[in-house]
């Protein structure tokens, strides 16, 4: 069990403030844009950075506690760290890299050689044992880095964007291998990425980080259906608004004030502050003010048209509203409505079917 509750400032502009609890055998994915504090969090856990405030505890043992001024050296923590571009020692062979931790931990030469060989075998690196990192492919380097981090069977495994240095084809193949390895790992695993796709592949649980805070923690499908950050909402393709109820109306409707303007939505929440997610499919686009029953209508100029993969049969219409509103229409509609950047349109959606959540 990993418990942490830490605050760490970097310079004047950035502050990380995070609290987490994680059971053994699980993988938590930290998802966030660069600068959101993911790597800072990993470095705090490894002991490469000290918290300004707070505690870190693993399996009941204290690793850091600012109240008593205690901080365990990184070399005394049971941690494996896969660095973003691996940081394999360039002057050592693959076998020496993988065996480094064993020798540093004082394991005898023979025993270290035996265990290194076993790990190299398990990671399919046995035939590359004598090579220098520079003579390996990206995928092989990645495997060597993971093998090196796991050789001491750490209680906490930290992976910082382990796939980002790989080309796309390699990434797909390595992803599967890595997922199996994480599944077998008995300790706690933390996996950092800025790619939501990767987060969905690796994380039973995902923590979304933004601006040094953990914006949302939850199961992957929960994060997908009910995003609480603009970052995830944009990835899953939802229009997300944070809003406050200004008036409840008869018929189970509520009027929300959001950055875009006032929205009328179906209202099952009793809270005053909530998120409203609007699917681009639910938004209709027209050149004239709509005459139908939609309660929410916004006028705006088309900023761009983005064809949706794979065939471009559907097109995302991004309006230059603040914040940008995204609708999805068919290619036929684009042609019949004469949609193009700069054209003024109306976007409308109904109150029903849009559910606010906290």
């Amino acid at each position, binding site marked *: 069990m990993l418990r942490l509750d830490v605050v760490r400032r970097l310079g004047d502009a950035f502050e990380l403030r995070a609290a987490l609890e994680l059971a053994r055998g699980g993988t938590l994915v930290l998802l966030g844009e660069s600068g959101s504090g993911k790597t800072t969090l990993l470095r705090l856990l490894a002991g490469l950075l000290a918290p300004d405030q707070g505690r870190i505890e693993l399996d009941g043992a204290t690793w850091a506690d600012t109240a008593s001024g205690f901080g365990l050296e*990184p070399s005394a923590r049971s941690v494996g760290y896969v660095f973003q571009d691996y940081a394999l020692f360039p002057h050592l062979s693959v076998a020496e890299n993988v065996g480094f931790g064993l020798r540093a931990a004082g394991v005898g030469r023979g025993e270290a050689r035996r265990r290194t060989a076993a790990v190299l075998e398990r990671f399919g690196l046995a035939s590359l044992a004598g090579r220098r990192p520079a003579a390996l492919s990206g995928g092989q380097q990645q495997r060597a880095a993971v093998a090196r981090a796991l050789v001491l069977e750490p209680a906490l495994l930290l992976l910082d964007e382990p796939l980002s240095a790989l080309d796309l084809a390699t990434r797909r193949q390595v992803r599967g291998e890595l997922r199996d390895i994480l599944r077998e790992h008995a300790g706690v695993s933390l996996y950092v990425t800025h790619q939501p796709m990767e987060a969905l592949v690796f994380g039973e649980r995902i923590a979304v980080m933004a601006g040094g805070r953990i914006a949302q923690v939850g199961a992957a499908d929960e994060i997908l259906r009910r995003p609480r950050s603009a970052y995830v909402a944009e990835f899953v393709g939802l229009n997300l608004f944070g809003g406050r109820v200004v008036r409840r109306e008869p018929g189970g409707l509520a009027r929300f004030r959001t950055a875009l303007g006032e929205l009328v939505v179906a209202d099952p929440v009793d809270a005053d502050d909530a998120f409203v997610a609007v699917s681009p499919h639910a938004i209709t686009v027209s050149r004239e003010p709509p005459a139908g029953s939609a309660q929410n209508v916004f006028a705006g100029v088309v900023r761009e048209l983005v064809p949706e993969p794979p065939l471009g049969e559907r097109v995302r219409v991004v309006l230059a509203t603040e914040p940008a509103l995204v609708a999805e229409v068919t290619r036929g509609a684009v042609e019949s409505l004469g949609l193009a950047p700069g054209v003024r349109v109306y976007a409308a959606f109904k109150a029903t079917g849009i559910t606010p959540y906290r």
Partner: protein
Amino acid sequence: MTRLSPAGLGLRLAVGVAIALFLALVGLPLVALIVRVAPGELIRRLGDPIVLAALRLSLITSLIATAVVVTLGLPVAYVLATREFRGKRLLEVCLDLPMVLPPTVAGLALLLAFGRAGLLGGALGALGVSVPFTTLAVIIAQAFMAAPFFVAPTRAAFGSVDQRYLDAARTLRASEAHRFARVMLPLAAPSIVAAAAMACARALGEFGATITFAGNLPGRTQTMPLAVYVALEGDLGAAVAMSLLLVVTSVGLLLALRSGGQGFFMSRAPARRR
């Protein structure tokens, strides 16, 4: 090709003249040394006992001085590269001082430190040791003058080892001693070897501090540069032959330094990221 403006043309001319003058300044004396001595003459001079004794003394003392500088300088460079402490700036200036100090002043300072009437003179005298005008004094003078040529680049080499490798080693249970021996030292090694070669070349050429602190006793303290100086008074041929010998030795050292490849004076960092 675009036509050069008069100003551009003038600039080109000035740069060309500067390069020519610079090459003449540095190269002409070397050429003068080389054309002065016939090869047979050079080989004959090598048999001269005085030349042989000076060459032998020079090689032995400068190698020992280099060993001393490397042994004592490595920990100093490491601490300077990895620690912050009060008075660090002052210490750095003091360590660089021999580079800019007139060698005779350095020799005088060494006399005042280790001489009979110097700071340590009493203590050394009680032990029955007298340093000045001995081979030991030669080694001390050379080490004193050569030290900054080793410490400064070695410190820079330690400082430029990529922090990621040290972080990786820390997360792999490596103590500081282990990180030094297995990560920092091997990654900085090419620059350290180059720095040692530079220090050795400096020790080999040392003159002023040696003659002030160690004197000019043939066989005991008369190194090659001193022997050249003495020969200048009487036997110009011997002086030229010995000078050429020194040049050859120094060129050999500099070549070794260049093939080491990643020296202080060449701008390649030792542990670049991929």
